[in-house]
């Protein structure tokens, strides 16, 4: 059953016209953001499928899809390049390709592209490279951005896709996607790194400056705490990466600037829960600050009813009235089921109103809660339909 929405006074946020967004040829990139567990990945896949079946040539970059969803999109092989999704209706002239981000592999490939084989070998062998390239703090976001940059560049060159849809890493905070790459970039490109590099470049000569005294003190401590090999490992890794990347920060800033380009639109995904909506609010503020285009809020797993006039109170009083009449036991229980749902709707409406009060101009698309998870194209298709119905 797909219940239709209820009109609740006070939640009069504009409706998000999803088909207009997908159909607008000016929309080149859609970034789906939101805190973990709100359904970003499924949402990205559903949007991509809908856009492709409406004639867009779409590439969807997913980060961590559920196994069965990945299988249904032909994504069980992790090869870090987009693959055509089978069984998509292409009569409107569209295309759907999908890929799952392999963070470590993207990092490796970036190194391979920019380094000589010898340099690359040295980098791969470094234990700190192993640690950094497979860590989930910052690297995943950096590599998602990197991959997005690559896909965009490819689209510009050969026109293979005219729409790229990106899912973002499952971090607690939606802001991590925007902040982590720059943090990592400016960090790897920053003063600390330069200081660390100094001893290696100077070949051991001691400069008696205040700063270097500090560096030497620190090096001494680190040698004692972590073992003598550690600084040499770090220094050689940083030196090697430094020569090939020509500035991590510059690279991160460039990708960031692309997010401000006119063709890039953001969708914030949230469920009607306090944490998810709080994250959505932070993210919305941030996009405004950074002049990035927010297309709207997708409110996922919203509960709805077709009997809105039967309020929590009326249902419960009715159930109470029937409690002593055994012949009406079924009706009593059904009224209690309804009361529970109405209670939930009331809470969700209340939470959503808080968001809308802060951001009355942000269009909203509501998606009804489903009893089961989605793991096939038909499920994605009907999710796409309800996204468009808003």
């Amino acid at each position, binding site marked *: 059953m797909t219940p239709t929405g209820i009109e609740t006074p006070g939640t009069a946020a504009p409706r998000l016209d999803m088909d207009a967004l997908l159909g607008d040829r000016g929309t080149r990139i859609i970034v789906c953001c939101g*805190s973990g567990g709100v359904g970003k990945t499924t949402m990205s896949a559903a949007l991509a499928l809908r856009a492709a079946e409406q004639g867009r040539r779409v590439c969807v970059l997913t980060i961590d899809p559920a196994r069965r969803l990945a299988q249904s999109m032909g994504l069980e092989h992790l090869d870090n390049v987009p693959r055509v999704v089978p069984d998509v209706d292409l009569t409107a002239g569209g295309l759907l390709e999908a890929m799952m981000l392999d963070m470590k592999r993207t990092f490796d490939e970036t190194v391979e592209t920019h380094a000589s084989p010898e340099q690359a070998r040295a980098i791969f062998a470094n234990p*700190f490279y192993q640690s950094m390239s497979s860590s989930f703090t910052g690297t995943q976001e950096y590599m998602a951005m990197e991959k997005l940059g690559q896909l965009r560049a490819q689209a510009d060159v050969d026109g293979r896709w005219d729409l790229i849809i990106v899912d973002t890493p499952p971090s*607690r905070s939606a802001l991590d996607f925007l902040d982590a790459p720059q943090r990592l970039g400016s960090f790897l490109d920053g003063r600390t790194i330069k200081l660390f590099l100094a001893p290696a470049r100077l070949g051991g000569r001691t400069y008696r400056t205040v700063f270097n005294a500090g560096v030497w003190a620190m090096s001494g401590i680190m040698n004692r705490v972590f073992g003598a090999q550690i600084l040499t490992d770090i220094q050689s890794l940083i030196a090697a990466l430094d020569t090939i990347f020509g500035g991590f920060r510059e690279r991160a800033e460039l990708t960031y600037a692309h997010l401000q380009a006119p063709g890039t639109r953001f969708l914030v995904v949230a469920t009607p829960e*306090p944490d998810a909506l709080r994250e959505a609010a932070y993210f919305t503020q941030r996009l405004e600050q950074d002049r990035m285009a927010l297309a709207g809020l997708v409110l996922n797993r919203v509960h709805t009813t077709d009997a809105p006039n*039967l309020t929590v109170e009326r249902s419960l009083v009715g159930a109470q009235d029937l409690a002593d*009449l055994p012949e009406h036991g079924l*009706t009593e229980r*059904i009224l209690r089921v309804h009361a529970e749902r109405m209670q939930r709707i009331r809470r969700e409406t209340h939470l959503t109103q808080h968001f809308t009060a802060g951001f009355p101009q942000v269009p909203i698309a509501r998606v009804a809660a489903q009893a089961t998870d989605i793991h096939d194209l038909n499920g994605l298709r009907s999710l796409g339909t309800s996204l468009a119905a808003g």
Partner: protein
Amino acid sequence: MRFRVEDVPSDPGDCPGARLHVVTGKGGTGKTTLAAAAAIALASGGRRTLLIEVEGRQGIAQLFGCPPLPYAERRVAVARGGGEVHALAVDVEDALLEYLQTVYHLGRARWALGKLGALDFVTTIAPGLRDVFLTGKICQALQAPQPDGARYDAVVVDAPPTGSVARFLNVNEQVAGLARVGPVRDQAESIMEVLRSGQTTVHIVTLLEEMPTQETVDVVTELRGIGLPVGEVLINMVRKPVLHAGDLIQAQSRQLPRAEIATGLAAAGLPTSAAVVEALIGEAVDAADRVALEAAERAALASLGLPTYELPWLAEGIDLGGLYELAAALTDQGLGVSGP
């Protein structure tokens, strides 16, 4: 700095010997909430517990409605029978500095470390090292005597989510390639000994939904693979089924009696229009479908062979009262009850 491994009873039951309770779960399952409830439950009867968070998000402060937690233990709640819950937000920089201070008695060098961003450096480029300092702080809190000389009766950790908890706890593996010798290496090994001993138990918070169940099954395999003791599965937000078994069969075969329901509504003085009846039947069918789905998820969780606790869905959201309600549910089901 090495940590002691204590002798504990080997009864695996509900982990009566465990003092370190690590709580993980998929994002959105309520892992922080249940970690807090467990800390309250374990403090009942005049005991003292410490609730630790490691992800720098001040989730505990939000939950207890107190100002952001500093890098110091604060009392945040009391429990039945004079118990106390303390809380600590572990910050990795502070943990590293504290470690260096304890081991090396840093003076001015401490200032230099901060000034140069060395900590940032170490923790960004080698997140594995980061986790050594976080878990090290947890072990230290577990073993350090309080001002009155007693130790915490239990330490509960709001750990990283299922996707990254095994990595977080497997510190030995993480530093294996990085620090081959030296104090950090020793520290990592000592932490592993504590984590693998009977004084530690990992609880997994889940919901009766497909993805959280799948992640629970996956993480149990992963934790067992690295020799970490898995304790209970905490099934959160469980709703009491309103419909009876017979109703469910009728609903699932789409045969709920329209006329009977309309008569019932009339008897209660409620609208009986076809639209209302259809709407109510649709909702009952949804509820029945959910019950069936939940039964399947329950069976998948049962196949893990772990003790499971069920925590009720709180319709009005989680406030302080709700936390105590969940804590009572944990105690009633046996959390922290020692021995048979």
